[in-house]
């Protein structure tokens, strides 16, 4: 099993969800997060004064998938989230040691 964490542009979230649905990956967790990478942030101007916004709003999604699906999932996220501009985000793939569905007690891939 793999655990995928992706940091996205907030406005790409709906497309990412749709792309994952198309390859039958259902279920992910979404958080509103802030951070910076090469995009670094931006400036906003209020009453003539510039304010540096160092941490840009992003969306973080987390999902657990079976080993065979992981590459497709990463490809789907990449396809749907890419705008080609700086600030599109990153995808991290981790080995997932165990998973358990709380309601039934199922474990391993069955729990996903």
């Amino acid at each position, binding site marked *: 099993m793999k655990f995928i964490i992706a940091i996205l542009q907030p406005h790409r979230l709906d497309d990412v969800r749709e792309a994952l649905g198309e390859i039958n990956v259902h279920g992910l967790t979404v958080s509103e997060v802030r951070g910076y990478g090469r995009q670094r942030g931006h400036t906003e101007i*209020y*009453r*003539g004064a510039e*304010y540096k916004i160092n941490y840009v709003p992003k969306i973080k999604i987390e999902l657990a998938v079976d080993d065979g699906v992981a590459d497709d999932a990463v490809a789907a996220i990449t396809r749907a989230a890419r705008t080609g501009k700086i600030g599109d985000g990153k995808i991290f793939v981790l080995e997932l040691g165990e998973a358990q569905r709380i309601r039934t007690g199922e474990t391993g891939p069955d729990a996903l």
Partner: protein
Amino acid sequence: MHGGVPTWRLPENRAKASECRRQSGTWETGGIAMDSGNTAWILTSTALVLFMTLPGLALFYAGLVQARNVLSVLMHCMGIACAMSLVWFAAGYSLAFTDGNGWIGGLSKLMLAGIGRDSVVESAGIPETLFVMFQMTFAIITPALIVGAFVERIRFGAVMLFSILWLVIVYVPVTHWVWGGGWLAEMGVMDFAGGIVVHATAGMSALVIAWMLGARRGFPDSVHPPHAPWMVMVGAAMLWVGWFGFNAGSALAAGGDAAMAMIATHLSAATASLVWVVIERIRFGRPSLIGLVTGTIAGLATVTPASGFIGPSGGVILGLIGGVLCYFAVDFVKRALRIDDSLDVMAVHGVGGITGTLLTGFLASAYFGGVGLADGQTAAGQFQVQLIGVAVTVIWSAVATWALVKIITPIVGFRVSNQAELEGLDLAEHGEAGYRFQP
């Protein structure tokens, strides 16, 4: 029967109030005619002016601060509104509007003594209770304007004690000078709704208190941006609407003066708003909402002293000039003076109100559709009177504010600790949180 009361709001050229009274519905009390039309309009105006502070100004300011300080700003405005009401009742009204000398009124109406249902403001044909209340709403918003200078770093007790003392030491005397038959009124100063009384006093005091308090952490390069520009717009819109009560209500009559004041006020607000977005568009490429609504307030403050004396084109001219001057005053205070008058009270209210006051004599001329000047007065002569009024008021506001800060600091403290400033005043001073996103 009312010493000083309304010779103030204006001079010679208005016997109009009593003319209106004869035409519309009246009732008698103690042999003096009360005017139901005027009374109805001033009742309405009183509610509108209180609405400017609660919640208009409170929201306007609260949106401009960080999320961790939103409640503290709302507290300042609400707390000031309550305290000023009692001070006005106890002594403020009497000291401002009863006969005394040229500098301060008398003590005959402390605790509103002798003012009952039958008391009348003769020149306007309205109950004196209503006049007291209408003026009270001005006494509330003026110290509340100063809040913009010290947000995000002042102790709540300091806000309350300073505001109470400031009302008595600065606002009340200046009101007496200008509107209560004092020395500036004798000189013929023209301040229809508070360019001197409200905006010059608040603006200058704001500058001094901000300077004494010191800047917010990180000023000027890394302070945090406004947390809710939408809230700023909502507050500014309420101020705009409420300002009709402030300016058109200051005619103290439901007639042509009020209506003309309303048009001039509205046009100045609209013009100055556009001035700000045009400057921003040229300078930064993008017109901002906060810029637009700050222009609105600049236009409203600028037209205030002139509003009842000028015509519609005078409103547009004041909006243009006030809009431009206030815009660059923001940069001047924060960049050149390096004073963290955080929400630009001096730049927007002070500079606007002073600009309008100085130009009133010129724009009141019949050429611009105004009411004209007093017999024998010239525009240059009026300008001199206006200048004296502004200068003395600004100096008194600055000196008194400096002294009051020195007095209150040992009693209630002044600035919060570094820790409290980092944590935010909502939690540190009030034990509350403005926003709770988690259950």
